[in-house]
């Protein structure tokens, strides 16, 4: 073997850019978060301005925190560590530049469109379709740049951090593309390809795994690089890395339905969601253990080094929230916690504690090295830590208390057991007002802490100058590599793939297949254990080979993450058709109701109102009959919601309240519901409904399979106008000047349509076998 050496220069400019971008967007995202937290307490902070209302700013907060703050932080960490772990400069400077500027442009586009009310109406997937395409394209640029770097690397073996980056890149691409499939009706509006329960499943498959593969796996990779670096200690256990990596990426994907527990979602899917969430506990804790136990022998640094402080706390918060997650996924717990602040608290112990603190630790470690200087102030960094820490505890504690209290109040029955104890939703909201304020305080403290980081980083950068790091490396000449076929058809992978195949057959199979497959799962498990004991060396060598072979590794990782989603989503795509719905079928929207629905989506009503009455007694007593799958089958996108800051609206229509009530309520919610914290929507009373856009919208929905009767362009517009006039006449006694073509009329038409269904005629052809 002839060894040639070469000197490489790392591309740290890209890392510097992403670092600064992350910190900048972090401030914006957190500022938005704190602002909307105060809006919940002081409705006047909505200022009666469309682009400052909670419903539009909350998506801005979540998107900024996830994609701008954590996204840029992740890219900084990945670009820095991948080059060093591969002993090679990032493959293409041009692609790095396109990646950086493309991503920033996307964020700016998001920050402009979301306050304008341009949205797809799905959580963490709100951005409109042209931006979706840009995100997918830039992600592919990132992927090419990353895998090209792996291909060029001078380091034969892939370190565990790289495994996590690989899983991140392929899974996020898969999730993002599938959940953003839509048909445009204009340049700024589209309808989701999936509707009703399918859309709900796809959404939470995406939503849950955005947490998994955007907020967790890349940060675990970053932990595996930066934490041992900062601590100067070896990683605790390689085999724990192997076991927890593969179990984590395989199991995570299945857990999405735990966002839809006790709803109309078929029970088997709920059980998968709950069961896999419980099984996810150990793999998640594997990451926490490997992080915390790596610090063994470096605990003295906890006192002196703010970087270690942030990492230790960040990993601990990771452990806390990944314990809480499975707990909340238990149906009986979810009965209480769903739609409540508890969920919000859970998410923030992950984002503020894990993401925020890992980011801070990484920045404090990285910035002095990137600018060839020392951290400006350890004292300030410590102050940031304690402010942030107390902020999180206040935030999370308040949300626990608030979620449990409001959940108990909402579910409480009176002494007769035949009615809810607090019939007015507002009463339960008033019950948690003080706690909501504590949350806002906690968030404010956390924001102040982060601003101190900004000052500290600023001063650090000012004291140094951009560093250029060069290193002499041995050029890696790949020996004869095994092919993908050889790697995949080896005993260990065949055993694991067979196991997974029979698990799927067991879960999905008919009355005989399931037992046979279950037996096969047992047989393969025992055989695998026996073979592993006998041929340990062989299995270990295989894995060592695998981690030298990024194509095979990526292929197997892709299979692992693809299975869970396929099992859950594909059956509903075929089953969830109108002709298969037995009990209730949603009534088609009229054109005006459809226009109203788009206004509902655009204003972000789903951020505070659900449209899903769960199959639990308190929900039924409070809101009416539990929701059926058929009742949202034509909804593109679905609007089941995930949080009830206000009451459920699934059966709000059909004159449950008079139209004039809705009219008053949208103008000033506190007239009709004293104590409400809902924003007022005065602009809906002036702005005109976009009737002209309706024909294209109806046509698009017909293409998606919604059976609207054939109507000409004029008929559609005429129908909408007539219905508007009808509602306006009803409202004459409330406001003689109401205009039939204003948005409020369309919105009322939609609200009054909620909960309308018909019972399909069971055709006699649905025969016995």
């Amino acid at each position, binding site marked *: 073997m002839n060894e040639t050496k070469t000197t490489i220069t790392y591309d740290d400019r890209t890392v510097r850019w992403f670092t600064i971008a992350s910190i900048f967007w972090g401030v914006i995202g957190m500022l938005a978060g704190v602002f909307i937290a105060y809006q919940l307490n002081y409705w006047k902070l909505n200022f009666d301005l469309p682009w400052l209302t909670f419903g539009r700013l909350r998506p801005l907060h979540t998107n900024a925190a996830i994609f701008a703050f954590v996204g840029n932080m992740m890219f900084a960490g990945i670009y820095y560590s991948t080059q060093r*772990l591969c002993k090679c400069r990032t493959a293409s400077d041009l692609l790095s530049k396109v990646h950086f500027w493309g991503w920033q442009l996307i964020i700016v586009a998001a920050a402009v469109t979301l306050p304008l009310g341009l949205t797809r109406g799905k959580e963490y997937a709100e951005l409109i379709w042209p931006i979706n395409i840009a995100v997918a394209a830039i992600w592919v640029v990132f992927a090419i740049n990353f895998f090209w770097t792996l291909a060029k690397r001078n380091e034969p073996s892939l370190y565990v951090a790289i495994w996590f980056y690989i899983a991140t890149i392929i899974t996020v691409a898969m999730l993002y593309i599938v959940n953003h499939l839509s048909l445009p009706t204009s340049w700024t509006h589209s309808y989701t390809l999936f509707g009703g329960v399918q859309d709900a499943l796809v959404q939470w498959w995406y939503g849950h795994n955005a947490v998994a593969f955007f907020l967790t796996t890349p940060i675990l990779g970053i932990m595996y690089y930066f934490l041992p670096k900062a601590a100067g200690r*070896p990683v605790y256990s390689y*085999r724990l890395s192997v076991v927890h990596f593969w179990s984590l990426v395989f199991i995570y994907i299945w857990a999405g339905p735990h966002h839809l527990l006790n709803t109309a979602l078929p029970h*088997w899917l709920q059980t998968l969601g709950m069961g896999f969430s419980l099984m996810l*506990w150990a793999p998640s804790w594997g990451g926490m*253990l490997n992080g915390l136990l790596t610090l063994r022998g470096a605990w003295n640094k906890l006192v002196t080094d703010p970087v270690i402080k942030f990492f230790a706390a960040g990993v601990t918060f990771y452990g806390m929230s990944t314990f809480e997650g499975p707990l909340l996924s238990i149906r009986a717990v979810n009965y209480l916690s769903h739609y409540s602040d508890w969920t919000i608290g859970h998410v923030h112990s992950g984002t503020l504690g894990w993401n925020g603190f890992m980011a801070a630790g990484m920045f404090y470690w990285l910035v002095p090295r990137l600018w060839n200087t020392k951290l400006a102030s350890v004292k300030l960094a410590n102050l940031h830590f304690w402010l942030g820490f107390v902020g999180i505890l206040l935030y999370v504690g308040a949300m626990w208390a608030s979620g449990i209290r409001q959940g108990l109040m909402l579910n409480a029955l009176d002494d*007769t057991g035949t009615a809810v104890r607090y019939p007015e939703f507002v009463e339960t909201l008033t019950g948690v007002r003080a706690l909501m304020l504590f949350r806002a305080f906690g968030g404010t403290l956390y924001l102040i802490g982060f601003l101190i980081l900004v000052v500290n980083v600023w001063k650090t950068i000012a004291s140094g100058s951009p560093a250029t790091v060069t290193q002499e490396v041995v050029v890696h000449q790949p020996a004869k590599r095994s092919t993908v076929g050889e790697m995949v058809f080896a005993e260990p992978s065949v055993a694991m793939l067979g196991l997974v195949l029979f698990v799927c057959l067991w879960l999905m199979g008919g009355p005989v297949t399931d037992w046979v497959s279950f037996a096969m799962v047992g047989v393969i498990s025992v055989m695998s254990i026996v073979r592993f004991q006998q041929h340990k060396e062989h299995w270990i060598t295989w894995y060592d080979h695998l981690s030298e072979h990024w194509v095979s590794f990526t292929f197997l990782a892709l299979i692992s993450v693809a299975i869970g989603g396929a099992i859950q989503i594909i059956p509903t795509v075929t089953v969830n058709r109108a002709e298969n719905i037995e009990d209730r079928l949603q009534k088609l929207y009229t054109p005006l109701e459809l226009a109203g629905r788009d206004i509902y989506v655009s204003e972000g009503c789903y951020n505070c109102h659900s449209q899903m009455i769960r199959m639990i007694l308190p929900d039924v007593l409070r809101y009416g009959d539990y929701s059926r799958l058929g009742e949202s089958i034509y909804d593109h996108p679905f609007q089941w919601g995930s949080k009830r800051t206000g009451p459920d609206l699934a059966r709000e229509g059909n*004159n449950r309240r008079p139209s004039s009530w809705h009219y008053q309520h949208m103008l000033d919610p506190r007239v*009709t519901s004293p104590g409400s914290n809902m924003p007022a929507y005065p602009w809906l009373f002036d702005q005109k409904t976009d009737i002209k856009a309706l024909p294209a919208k109806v046509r698009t929905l017909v293409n998606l399979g919604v059976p609207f009767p054939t109507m000409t362009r004029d008929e559609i517009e005429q129908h909408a106008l007539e219905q508007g006039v009808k509602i306006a006449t009803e409202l004459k006694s409330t406001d003689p000047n109401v205009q039939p073509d204003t948005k409020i009329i369309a919105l009322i038409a939609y609200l009054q349509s909620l909960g309308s269904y018909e019972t399909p005629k069971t055709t006699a052809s649905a025969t016995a076998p």
Partner: protein
Amino acid sequence: MSKKPEDHKPELRPHVFDGIEEYDQKLPNWWLFTLYIAIVFFVVHWIIHFQFRVVPSDAQRLDPVVAKIRDDRMKAMTAMLNDTTLGKLATDQAVVAEGQKIYQQTCLPCHGPNRGGKTEAPLYIGASLADAEWRYGAKPTDIYKMIFDGSPSPADLAAKGEIPMPAQGPVLGPEKVASVAAFILSHHLQAKPQ
């Protein structure tokens, strides 16, 4: 790797990545147990629910409960409440006070603080409860029924451009509806004895 390290000194992996070393410690037993227990729980849970199907579905569990509550409410209404008992409740200060509290939360937004509805201020959209006109019957049980079930045939009313009264029974339950009815009636004791 072929033999378990008997001593407690952890073994370092031979390869070093950019200065990062790795131990290869055994997996903690308690950690493995949490994984195994979760897997066993899932398998048993799945088999009970979807292979033996011995656990009733959510609908099978919930539907009878809801049906029974509906029945109970009807029975309670007919047994407990007739014109005489309701009339008596309207003289019970405690019940009337309770009814007033509920009225202020639930009914006031439409019927106004003085029960005048439309006649009180243009802001209010409900019918007047203060005058002597009772569109759907003046007996105490009629009023109870009106609050409990809302306007009869609301769709027809809406079509005529009138505003139907929403049913409060499903939300409030019979007891609270009776208190509200008692509160309303308490203002009509002198004017219009039943």
